């Protein structure tokens, strides 16, 4: 196989993504987990870029890295959970009784392994198109057009959803403050 920069770039980016995703789950400090999550998101933006979805890549950085990671960091700092207060504390330990260990570690691991195994089997059996069909032209325009024609109703619904989420988040987060002031 000759040197194919796209492929190499993809492998490198994917590898970083997988490693940092793994660190999200295993990092001792939750702050680090969140930052690893940000790195994963960033690498996935790179993956999108390599697959011709530059608009989505930018949206990925804007939404996931810029917004979601930030909110999660805020959430960590504000929730003042035990794990955060004692900065360096390890993640809440799995309780030592056997049932919990079984449910928390063994079963999920089995489920995940089974899932990935099945997926690998499936992927290896199917014959995929070798070359990309290509996107043809300006993807930004294409997405815009699709959003305002075929997907107009989902698009409007998404707008409503965001509004509801905004109001809901404010109501949920603020409600208890008032109660505490009264109490």
């Amino acid at each position, binding site marked *: 196989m000759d040197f194919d920069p796209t492929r190499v770039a993809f492998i490198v980016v994917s590898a970083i993504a997988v490693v940092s995703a793994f660190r999200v789950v295993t990092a001792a400090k939750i702050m680090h987990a969140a930052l690893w999550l940000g790195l994963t998101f960033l690498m996935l933006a790179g993956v999108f870029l390599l697959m011709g979805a530059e608009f989505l890549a930018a949206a990925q950085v804007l939404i996931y890295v810029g917004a979601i990671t930030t909110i999660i960091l805020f959430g960590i700092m504000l929730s003042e959970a035990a794990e955060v207060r004692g900065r360096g504390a390890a993640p809440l330990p799995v309780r030592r009784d056997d049932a919990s260990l079984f449910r928390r570690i063994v079963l999920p691991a089995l489920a995940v392994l*089974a*899932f990935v195994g099945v997926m690998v089997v499936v992927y290896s*059996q199917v014959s995929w198109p070798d070359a990309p069909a290509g996107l043809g032209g300006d993807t930004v325009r294409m997405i815009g057009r699709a959003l*305002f*024609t075929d997907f*107009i*109703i989902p698009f409007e619904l998404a707008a409503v959803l965001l509004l509801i989420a905004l109001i809901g988040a404010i109501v949920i987060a603020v409600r208890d403050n008032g109660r505490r002031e009264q109490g």
Partner: protein
Amino acid sequence: MVELAWLIPLLPLVAAVVIAFLGKRLPGQGDRIGIAAISMAFVLSVGVLVGVMNGGTAAGSVTWAIHGDLVLRMGWEVGGIGAVMLVVVTLVSLMVHVFSLEYMKGDVRYQRYYGVLSLFTFSMLGLVLADNLLLLFIFWELVGLCSFLLIGHWYEDLDNVRAANKAFLTTRVGDVGMFIGIMLLFSQAGSFRFDEIAAAVAAGDVAGWALAAGAILLFAGAVGKSAQFPLHVWLPDAMAGPTPASALIHAATMVAAGVYLVARAFGIFEPSDAAMSVVAWIGAITALFAATIGVVMEDIKRVLAYSTISQLGFMVAALGVGGYTAAMFHLMTHAFFKALLFLASGSVIHATGTQNMHEMGGLFKKLPITGWTWLIGAGALIGIPPLSGFFSKEEILIDAYAANPAIFWVLVAAAALTAFYTTRATYLTFFGAPRDRAAYEKAHEGGMVMTYPLIILGALAAVTGFLAGPFADLVYYGHPHRAEFNTFVFGVATVVWVAGVLLALAIYKFNLVSRRRLIQAFYPIWMLLKRRYYIDDLYNLVFVRGTIGLAMVMAWIDRTIVDGIVNGVAWATRKLSGFIGEFDLGVVDGAVNGIAGAFVVGSRLFRRVQTGLFQSYALVLFLGLVAGLVILVIGG
């Protein structure tokens, strides 16, 4: 000028937005912005009307959304009826805006009031201009919202909140029907546009049942919004709002929206006989029925509210008998004289601080301008020639007489009652001896901003009747149609209004018959009217109490039966264990422990399932998914 019609609603919208966001920082909390915008809109509307009278029409639209083959367009259209409505709405709205300057001075939510007024004006104008049912429906709901906000303007008082909720929910009942009707018509005709639906109907593309059902369902919306029987109950309660707002919304414009809707969609109604007779009869019944209640009301605004319902019934009945021009003409004249009456009553309320007519009396001397303008409005409402109401009511009666004598006689009876209660209200308010000295002494005429709108509207209420000719040339369905003067109808109408006025004077002025004796003699009827035919009570009983009762039944079931079973089991277990503990502690210890052990084991087993941890549920869910995948892979 006609091409600029789309600008007219935008002006109040801009005003509404500016007042909403910046009102607090503007001089006068933004009232001037509202007035400036509505004045410009009025000037533009007059220009549009002149353009339309010279034969111009205009329409325009922008693409709203494309979904597959369906292209939704947002469009506006202005023809004769639209141009007239634009002028009426902007004019009345302008008068109300100005009048409110003094009436609402110092109100806690002055800014909000003006913001909502502007928003309402925008919505109403949008409703008038909309060229399709969907857009009309959106504005329809917007005016409903504004009405809700204004009725509940003083929401510190729970009654006002209830009234607002009642108005909103009652009209919603009609709106649901209307929405179903819109969708039904859309499914049949494939379009929301009035002209396209009418064309499809004319071409026979719409099945007969669908046409009748669609038209009647649409009319259900109009019944709600125009407060027709049986959804009229909200309008009298809506008088809880500020009086100028009532004048604008609950007398002149929004309640006329239902009539306007029927007129706008006349191409859907006209071909269906069933729909037309429903419309005609609902209108006629409402006209008579509301007039009878108006006879016994004591609150001046409620009298006017029932009068409004009755007059709207006249318009709807006129539409039902095919009197398109007559209905729209009455809509216009009614808008002016009823807005006038409401503003005059507002002036009275402002002066005396009460709404109960029995606490007024003799105010004519104190409020000469209000009194004179009220007399003009009342005369127009009764239909005294040559005031405007005479012409429009005469046209309706002529059309009804020609189409359906039964309806004609119902309307005549309503007209007689109208004369009676109007005279009664006039006399009780303005003449006779003052019944509340303190209020009488401090009563005085409002300032310029309150009297000028009255004078302008008074002049309009007096003279618009003479415009019947040009109006008929401008607003018609099919071909221009002028009501021919009919001596018989004129004679009957004159006799009944004269009789009504004389009867009221006989009772209230000359005391020929004692009021108490009258009430005693007709006590059941009086009570029936006083309780408004028990319809409100009926609704209260069936719907409100029904819902609450149902909820209580459910709560009872939940508390008694469900909880009972749970508690019973717990109680039984406790008793049982106590029993066993007391008697058999030492004797059958082993057996008891065995049973308990069995329960423990059983519950351990079963409670595994209900851990309350979503992760467990997710795990099970996912394992199921994987299992499904495995089966798919192996099987496929």
